[in-house]
Each structure stands twice: as structure tokens, then as C-alpha cells.
């Protein structure tokens, strides 16, 4: 039996949370998922549905004229069902990222772009200088820029100043599955920015998504954690629950932590 065969409850209780608002567009789900690296398009679509994500990322690439490789993803993903967020993945300069963003917008779905400019091959860490430069130009052209960046506060502030509609610091390197390596910096970025903060990249399993949301951020974006799970559909359900759980825990307000034990039961009233 697969998870798509029975219904998957676990919803954010109505009225508890506000929607995730990105440049005037409201999303109920705070989970955004990628569409890369799935074993099949069918598994991808089932996993995305199980995740309850409304926004999904896609990449821009040459059409394979030999038709031996990748099929167009829109044969499988209905743009009426999912809000497409095109990325500039694979770009190493502001110029390239701008070119890819313009191509994506010309497809005619929306003006949102996930800006990603890579600065280092091995870690896939962002080139912040090029990212900021591209963000300024794209924002001026009317793009709704959601910028992937590292967990550096100053860069995040600059991206906000550049006109980004969301800033997306990494939890840890893309595809690493290492979880949130620096929760303090994520919290600090969230505290200081006015635009939504979405943690993008590095989430490996449900607890990572939960911990991410507990930092108070507005959303979490992941791809490999689902696509590379043994059962992507089941993991997608786990991520949906974890994202809601983490958000609820944040809204509930956690207890103060102490580095000493504090008994839960009364000290008085003990027998002689």
C-alpha cells in the first residue's frame, strides 16, 4: 500500500496560522518543493501531492533535440495545480542568471524567479556578489526575486535592499542533507528582515524541516530530501507533517531551556 492510496490528514488547524504571502500571492503550505532527481515523473507528482506543497521549482534547460533524455516537465505537472517557481540553477554569473530568469519569464506563467548564482563547484555555495547584482537588475525589471543565499545576515540584508520578495538562506549545502548547521544565524536573519525568509537547501529528513520551522522562518524549500528518499511519497508526507509541526511549535512558543534539571512533579507532599 502506498500513501497515495489513503488520505493523509494532518493539516494546520484553521485560524492558527496566517498564509505565507509572497509578493501578494498567498500560500497555505509553508513547504516548497523541487522537481529534480526523481526516479520517475509519476513518483515526483505523487510526492509533491503528498507534500501538499503549492509552489514547486523547475529549471530552464535546452530542449533535447534527440529526445533521448528528459521530457518536458509540464507534460506531468499541471501549471493550474502548482505554482511554478523557475530557478537559475547552474548559473555562475549574474549575467547568466539574468538570461535564464528572462527565458523563464518568457514561458508566461509568472514573474517569480528563484535566483541562484553558484560561486563554488564543490560546495555549491552562492556567489553573493553576483547574486546581489542579479537581484537588483531583475527586481528592476519587475521580477519577483526569491534569492538563494548563504546564512550570512549582511548578505540577506543587501538582498532585501535589492528588492527581493523573499530571501532564502541555506540550512546547509545543496543536496547535503546535513540539516540546519547554524540555527542562530537563521534566526538572526529572520529577526532582521521584513521580507519572508525561506530556508532553502540542506534539509535531509523530517526533523530538519521541523527544526527549520521552529526557528520562526516563513517557509522551507527542499528537493533532494524527497527525491533521494527510499520512498519519496512517504517522506513527502513526513515533511508535510514536520513543517506543520515546526510551525505550530514556533507559534506555541517553546519553554525556556535550562542546563539543569527541573522536576515536573511537586517536591511537597512526599511521604515520610
Amino acid at each position, binding site marked *: 500500500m502506498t500513501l497515495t492510496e489513503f488520505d493523509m490528514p494532518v493539516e494546520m488547524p484553521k485560524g492558527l496560522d496566517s498564509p505565507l504571502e509572497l509578493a501578494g500571492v498567498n500560500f497555505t503550505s509553508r513547504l516548497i518543493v523541487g522537481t529534480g*532527481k526523481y526516479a520517475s515523473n509519476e513518483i515526483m507528482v505523487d510526492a509533491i501531492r503528498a507534500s501538499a506543497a503549492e509552489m514547486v521549482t523547475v529549471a530552464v534547460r535546452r530542449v533535447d533535440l534527440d529526445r533521448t533524455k528528459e521530457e518536458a516537465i509540464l507534460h506531468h505537472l499541471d501549471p493550474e495545480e502548482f505554482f511554478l517557481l523557475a530557478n537559475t540553477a547552474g548559473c555562475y554569473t549574474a549575467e547568466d542568471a539574468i538570461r535564464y530568469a528572462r527565458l523563464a519569464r518568457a514561458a508566461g506563467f509568472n514573474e517569480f524567479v528563484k535566483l541562484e548564482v553558484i560561486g563554488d563547484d564543490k560546495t555549491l555555495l552562492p556567489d553573493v556578489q553576483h547574486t546581489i547584482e542579479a537581484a537588483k537588475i531583475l527586481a528592476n525589471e519587475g521580477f519577483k526575486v526569491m534569492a538563494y543565499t548563504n546564512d550570512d545576515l549582511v548578505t540577506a540584508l543587501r538582498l532585501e535592499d535589492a528588492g527581493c520578495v523573499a530571501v532564502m538562506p541555506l540550512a546547509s549545502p545543496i543536496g547535503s542533507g546535513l540539516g540546519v548547521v547554524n540555527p542562530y544565524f537563521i534566526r538572526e536573519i529572520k529577526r532582521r528582515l521584513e521580507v519572508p525568509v525561506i530556508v532553502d537547501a540542506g534539509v535531509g529528513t523530517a526533523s530538519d524541516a521541523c527544526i527549520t520551522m521552529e526557528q520562526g522562518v516563513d517557509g522551507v524549500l527542499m528537493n533532494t530530501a524527497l527525491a533521494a528518499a527510499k520512498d519519496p511519497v512517504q517522506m513527502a508526507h513526513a515533511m508535510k507533517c514536520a513543517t506543520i509541526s515546526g510551525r505550530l511549535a514556533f507559534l506555541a512558543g517553546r519553554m525556556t531551556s535550562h542546563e539543569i534539571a527541573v522536576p515536573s512533579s511537586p517536591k511537597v507532599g512526599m511521604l515520610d
Partner: protein
Amino acid sequence: MIQVRLNGKDLSVSNGHTIRSLLQSIEINPLGVVVELNREILTRDAYSDLEIKEGDKIEVVHFVGGG
């Protein structure tokens, strides 16, 4: 015949092709792609008017899975 570069590959095409007829000849639905001609993005209504010239660099892109 003229020589063009299509998606990074050299291609010989007969004279008089427009972007639209080129897409047709390689069986690509114009609605599912975006076309860049010599680094300029084309609007779909321009496909029928633009005649392909010797040395043109054409990129035909679409959305694929990505994170």
C-alpha cells in the same frame, strides 16, 4: 542550404525557414518552449515573421525538473 547553430549543434537548413517552420520541422510544439535568437528572446507571435539567416544562433529551452 544555410548553416545555423541550434541548441549548441551545427545544423544545415534549407533557405526560407522561419522560426515557426523550423520548430515544426523538428517537431517541437511552440507553446511548450521559449526561443532565443542570437541572445534575444522572441515572443511567440514573432516566430512566423522571423526568417532564419546564415550563422544564426538559436536556443530552444523548456522547463525540466530542478530544485
